[in-house]
């Protein structure tokens, strides 16, 4: 039994923290959030140089051949730093499907290109878990080439990425096809978390590259979902961690009745509770990451438990942080609301806690 990160993983964490503090201080994140694009395209080249886009890519494909545990460190730190850019979409959702795609993979590895996954439909399935039920997007083959048509909603980062991987149905079953953003008629919607905006797409006979064979889509998406839930649990841990840090700083400095407000137990105990929830969620998130990394039998229940607990902890940590900050924490100027909004994005992804507890119930009561 060994429950610690390796020295290399600790170094990766330090590197990530230093890069984000230097390149994306919270004022900068807030500024980017208010911009039309909502991200800084240059940053992807930089993180690619640091190796962050290719950690889980095999060495013979230009990556470093490491595992999800290494990426887990980054997901946590990118949550803590509230990195504004399609990292979750590209590395969390799309990359696992592109590892054999010689057309798309090099651009992702080099940071020149980004990608996302489109699964939900306006009047069809909304969750990755439901893609087997009533998908209407169609993939058709003529003369050996594929085209994709249909409507997809709630596509993360749809308007800023290069490739959109569309979950669609062909006559042989459900598969995944890549189309270019320019062929997808993307539209961005104002989203609570402006660092991770949802868009919709409506490709109509768009040229498509086959990524996952029709009939194999459900299994492939189940694996992506497992990994995505673990990644978001880790991001949520990073967010809760930052909410605790910001709160410690504030209640230690802010004085009322001549004393730092952190000396009042009505305040300090809220911060203690945030920390307890954070550490418990962290333990589950690391367990989930390890299960995903090693393909453990318990992976499905582990990611469900981690996602439910970590998202709850992050949302509650931000709410308590806003409370102990008082009026300033409720302002647009203060960065807390950005974390709070990201926490809510994560919390609702694939359903909030009760959805995931229901998955666990099926296994516990079988």
């Amino acid at each position: 039994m060994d429950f610690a990160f390796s020295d290399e993983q600790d170094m990766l964490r330090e590197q990530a923290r230093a890069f984000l503090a230097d390149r994306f201080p919270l004022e900068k994140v807030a500024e980017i959030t208010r911009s039309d694009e909502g991200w800084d395209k240059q940053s992807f080249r930089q993180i690619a140089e640091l190796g962050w886009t290719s950690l889980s890519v095999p060495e013979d494909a230009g990556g470093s051949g490491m595992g999800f545990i290494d990426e887990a460190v980054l997901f946590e730190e990118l949550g803590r730093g509230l990195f504004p850019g399609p990292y979750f979409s590209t590395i969390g959702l799309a990359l696992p499907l592109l590892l054999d795609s010689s057309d798309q993979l090099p651009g992702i590895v080099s940071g020149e290109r980004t990608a996302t996954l489109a699964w939900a439909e306006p009047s069809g399935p909304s969750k990755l878990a439901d893609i087997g039920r009533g998908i209407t997007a169609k993939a058709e083959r003529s003369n050996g080439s594929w085209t994709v048509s249909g409507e997809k909603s709630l596509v993360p980062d749809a308007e800023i990425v290069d490739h959109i991987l569309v979950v669609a149905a062909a006559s042989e079953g459900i598969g995944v096809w890549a189309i270019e953003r320019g062929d997808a008629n993307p539209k961005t919607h104002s989203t609570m978390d402006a660092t991770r905006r949802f868009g919709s797409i409506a490709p109509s006979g768009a040229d498509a590259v086959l990524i996952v064979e029709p009939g194999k889509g459900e299994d492939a998406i189940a694996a992506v979902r497992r990994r995505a839930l673990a990644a978001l649990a880790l991001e949520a841990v990073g967010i809760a961690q930052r909410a605790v840090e910001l709160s410690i700083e504030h209640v230690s400095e802010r004085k009322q009745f001549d004393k730092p407000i952190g000396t009042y137990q009505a305040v300090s105990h809220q911060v203690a509770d945030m920390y307890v929830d954070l550490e418990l969620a962290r333990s589950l998130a690391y367990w989930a990451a390890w299960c995903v990394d090693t393909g453990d039998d318990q992976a499905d229940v582990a990611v469900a438990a981690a996602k439910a607990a970590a998202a709850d902890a992050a949302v509650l940590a931000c709410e308590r942080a806003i409370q102990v900050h008082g009026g300033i924490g409720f302002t647009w100027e203060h960065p807390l609301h950005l974390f709070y909004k990201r926490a809510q994005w994560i919390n609702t992804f694939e359903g909030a806690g009760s959805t995931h507890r229901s998955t666990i119930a099926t296994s516990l009561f079988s």
Partner: protein
Amino acid sequence: MDFRDTPEEAAFRSELRAWLEANIPAEHRDRGHMAGRGDEEISREWSKKLYEAGYSGLTWPKEYGGAGAPYTHQAIFLEESARAEPPEHIGVIGLGMAGPTIIAHGTDDQKKRYLQNILSGEEVWCQGFSEPGSGSDLASLRTRAVDDGDSWVVNGQKVWSSFAHIADWCILLVRTDTEAPKHKGITYLLVDMHSPGVEVRPLRQITGDPEFNEIFFSDVRVPKANILGEVNGGWGVAMTTLLHERGTLGFALTARLEVMVRKLIELAKQTSVNGHTAAEDPLLRDRIVDQWVQLQALRFTNYRALTGLVKTGVPGPEGSIAKLHWSETNQELTKLALEILGPESQLDEDGAWSGFWQYQQLRSRGNTIEAGTSEVLRNIIAERVLGLPRGR
């Protein structure tokens, strides 16, 4: 990071599992749901058996009767105990508090005299820390010890002392200097509970069981050789005890919670509510699963703590987190069990599960008070772990 057993750990686990299977006494199993309430004779016998098989004091030094094994073995022992539900060792205070403190601060003679008998269950220990006027503010304690030649003479009263009614020895905090600042006039004594002048009176808890006691000391003579640490240096020694109480307790508490979660699931499967079993009720399922999730969170938090303990030898802050969260989870869980049982839950021995859940639920109210109240633990986390400014 690797959550699996090493080959060596796996071997220890399977050997232990087989041993527990073969050795848990029939009279313990026959008690069914009542087994959770403990039985002194069964516990004494079991303690001896554990000791003879080398499973007592797994992490204690070999020269004092321990196994000198790594902390991971202790964790595996507790996990396997949660699975097999053996009787409890009689020496809970000795194993968790007195022993580790003697290992840390005792002289060679003291280690030789006391440690082995703790492991074998031959001598039972109790704790004399809290007083009627000194609970969370422990350092305000007033039990006095006055220097009288070769002995200290102790007068005063202690309270909330589990096992005192069967204890042979007591780890006792006394005031030896009334002039010094309150933390600096305390001495840590090892007191023979059979000494003249020691009187134990049981206190009944809200469960009806007399699980803890008051201890009265009237001119009790304690030989000077029975000081642990230095005269007036008892506060630091006491902190070791409390660190261990909360530090290594996390595993034990989580093991207990694992048993409770398993029983809750069993209860839900066999109890009808609203025309189906509780296990089929969507609202109850959600709450039961939440208990399971809390259990896993505690389990892996303990594992993280374990890695820290192995590296530094000192329990980290996770112990306070585990105690705080375990106590609140156990209260929720047992209340949920009563809710599932409905009015039947109000019956004691004649009701479902022979009153197991009623006893557990009432007993759980002590969990947020004993071994550091939740309020004190939140102060510790705020001030010592997070570094918030001190309020006092």
